[in-house]
């Protein structure tokens, strides 16, 4: 039953994951934290941070959630569900390559999609912040990290994130 729910939740998110996955973070948080209570808002924010520190796509939070719910089998189901359907769809699009190649709809759709995905990435900030921002120092770390990423645009985000981890170890008790 749990496996089916994992497959259904993450499989649906997989197919809705336009724009690379940024757009599904708010819905994923809602499904995983609020709807199914699989993990707490704090754990979800932690998984999000870990997914940024580790190789692979942010969507792999799904696999960590699956593990929390049902061990390695849960992780496997969740990973297949989040990475499978979107890749199958891409495969299908790839097969129909020639029909899509010069299609005027392609450019129009890309243009229409972009602002919607960006808006959802703003909503994603709120979703993650629910489990990550509480005491004043966490606000300070978030703002300092934002500034660091914008100012040192060539620095690796992983390095900056490690910096915020060090700040957390020093400032949060």
């Amino acid at each position, binding site marked *: 039953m749990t496996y089916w729910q994992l497959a259904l939740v993450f499989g649906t998110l*997989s*197919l*809705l*994951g*336009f*724009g690379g*996955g940024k*757009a*599904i973070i*708010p*819905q994923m948080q809602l499904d995983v934290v609020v709807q199914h209570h699989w993990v707490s808002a*704090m754990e979800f*924010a*932690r998984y*999000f*941070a*870990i*997914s*940024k*520190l*580790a*190789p*692979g*796509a942010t*969507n792999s939070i799904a*696999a*960590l959630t699956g593990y929390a719910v049902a061990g390695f089998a849960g992780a496997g189901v969740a*990973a297949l569900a989040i990475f499978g359907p*979107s*890749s199958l769809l*891409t*495969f299908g*699009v*790839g097969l129909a390559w020639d029909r899509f190649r010069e299609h005027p709809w*392609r450019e*129009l*759709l*890309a243009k229409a999609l972009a*602002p*919607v*995905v*960006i808006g*959802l*990435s*703003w909503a994603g*900030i*709120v979703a*993650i*912040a629910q489990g990550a921002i509480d005491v004043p120092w*966490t606000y300070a*770390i*978030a703002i300092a*990290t*934002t500034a660091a990423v914008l100012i040192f645009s060539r620095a690796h985000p*992983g390095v*900056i*994130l490690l910096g915020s981890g060090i700040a*957390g*170890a020093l400032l*949060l008790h």
Partner: protein
Amino acid sequence: MSVSLGAIASSLARITSTQIGGGAMLTIRRELVRRRQWFTEEEYLEILSLAQLAPGPQICNVAVLTGLRLRGAAGAFTAWIATTAPALGLLFVIAALVLRGASVPLVADALRGCAAGAVGLTLANSIELTAPRRKSVRDLLFIALAAAAGILHVPLAVTLGVLIPLSVLVIALTRP
């Protein structure tokens, strides 16, 4: 010239298991176009634009399309496994270390710091994505609508189902 499945797997697995924070998308182009010379710059751009249009992580989509073009369905499947499995394995090693370490208060605080930092990272990314569009009223409108829908917990399927067609319509109507 036939590319071996092993070459596809090793190229993609190496990149996706060593690059973090979106670095893989930059590296993969160098690998496929310059180093391996499997595609011309133009062919790669075509793969990329399709990959961006389909749902799912771009890196997975680029990998699937790369495998498909080079070696058909077997190539696509090989590419998919190579892109997802090793990176997931590493994620689990890192997650196990970090989450187990979190029983130590100092590590737990560091992890809280990282989570707060990840909020900042996402905020910075959103600012960077929004800034170039600040002069387009249409873009800002749809950014605001989508953000509001996400924050107000409107189901994602509804948000996409309403806003994408609406966005297409507005673009089509305002075209000169």
